[in-house]
């Protein structure tokens, strides 16, 4: 069994490296992709693209050697060296190009996560196992192909690049079955909706130059939602208050008044509704 396991490793590694090299050698944006990797920190921006292609070329050469007879030990040694290089590289990338520390902002390169490191580690283990192979993968028992499938699934599971083909659909399915956000649906009108309506109203646009603040207070009463802002009326500090239809979208019915709170006087209130004035 162990002999069979070792024997199929060149097939697994060969397929993996061939797929990996394809992404590095083929496609219209290879140079741009290369500059976004940690390679550009390692060898400099100028050499990132050639280095990226060179790694792809080496991967392809080793893949072909592993996949085609005859079975040479040197092929497995090359795979071990390459896999060890990958482990070193992803750890370097993790340490030297880490996630920026703010927690939310910035334009960091897609970071290396534990999965990437684990994948490189599994590849190294597979390459070490391949060293012990004494028969070629083309002469193993057909049953051993199942091992290849299992191992390929491990690599797929550890490849963030492939998540959209299996992980995203699974998560979508879970959302469809469990409806985790169903509780958010309600008849409450969010303040954001009121604000959208307010911003499109003639009343708001006509007093906009007087407004000094963002929304300061808001409250509901009957069919209205009231929204107040700090305002300046001439040199006089004042409060602008809007009445917005709460459950309807009727921006033309929005009413406004500018009030001096200290005296209780209404300084400005257009004849209502404002839209009919002009």
């Amino acid at each position, binding site marked *: 069994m162990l002999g069979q396991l070792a024997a199929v490793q060149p097939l697994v590694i060969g397929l993996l490296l061939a797929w990996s090299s394809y992404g590095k050698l083929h496609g219209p944006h290879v140079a741009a992709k290369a500059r976004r990797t940690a390679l550009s920190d390692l060898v400099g921006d100028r050499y990132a693209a050639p280095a990226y292609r060179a790694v792809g070329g080496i991967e392809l050469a080793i893949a072909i050697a592993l996949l085609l007879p005859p079975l040479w030990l040197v092929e497995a040694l090359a795979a071990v060296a390459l896999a060890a290089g990958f482990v070193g590289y992803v750890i370097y990338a993790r340490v030297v190009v880490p996630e*920026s520390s703010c*927690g*939310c*902002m*910035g*334009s*960091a*390169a*897609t*970071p290396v996560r534990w999965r990437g490191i684990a994948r490189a580690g599994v590849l190294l283990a597979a390459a070490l196992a391949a060293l012990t192979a004494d028969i070629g993968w083309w002469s193993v028992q057909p049953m051993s192909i199942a091992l290849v499938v299992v191992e390929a699934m491990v690599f797929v599971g550890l490849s963030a690049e492939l998540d959209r083909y299996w992980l*995203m659909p699974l*998560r*979508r399915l879970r*959302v469809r079955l469990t*409806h*985790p*956000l*169903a*509780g*958010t*649906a*309600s008849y*409450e*009108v*969010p*303040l*954001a*909706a009121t604000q*959208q*309506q307010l911003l499109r109203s003639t009343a708001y646009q006509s007093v906009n*130059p007087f407004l000094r*603040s*963002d*929304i*300061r*207070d*808001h*409250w509901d009463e009957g069919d*209205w939602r*009231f929204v*107040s802002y*700090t305002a*300046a009326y*001439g*040199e*006089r500090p004042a409060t602008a*208050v*809007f*009445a917005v239809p709460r459950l309807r*979208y009727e921006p033309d019915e929005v009413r406004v*008044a500018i*009030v001096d*709170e200290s005296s*209780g*006087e*209404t*300084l*400005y*209130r257009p004849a*209502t509704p404002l839209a009919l004035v002009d």
Partner: protein
Amino acid sequence: MTGTIGRRTLLTSAVLGTSATLVGATAMGSLAPETAFAARAQLPEPGQPDPNFAEGRVVSRDGSVVMASGSDGRLHRIQLTGGTSVWKLRPTTVDQVLVGDGLYARGVLMPGGLLAAESVWVNIVNLKVHITAIGKNVLYLDHNGQKVVGHVVPGTSAAVYNGTAAISDLSMLKVGKHAQVIGAWRPDTNEVDLATIYAAA
């Protein structure tokens, strides 16, 4: 609290026209926008930082004066007043500005370098994300490769689908899709409370 209710009653009757104390607009002079703009004390000079704006993390708070350390190294002194609007996930009160919060403030720079704040936005973030997973009242988001956890706040979080009116129903959000999120950052974490999410339905 009675103060708040009293204010609201006054303002409600003023805007609905049920109070009689209207001073004629003509008595107050011109309604032209220039009148209002003239009240602005300082205009920004080209190439200089806007004097009427401050940004940073709150390092200390002494009553209504907040010290904020700006990302450019400047220290801002910000005066909160009864007329200051404070946004922290939702419009709230000035006592919600806490040490450790990040803030943006806009107001008028007073002589002596104190910024009299008219508007303060606390911990506000605006992120372009894609939704990597959805859990019970939580969205797992990816912002340029960084994981951000977005908490749904019932009664506050709203969604704008395809630019239509905001609604509270977030259930049309889809895993794997892009979205833009306005939210309130929980300081020193990768978590935000969601205010408004703009997405395609």
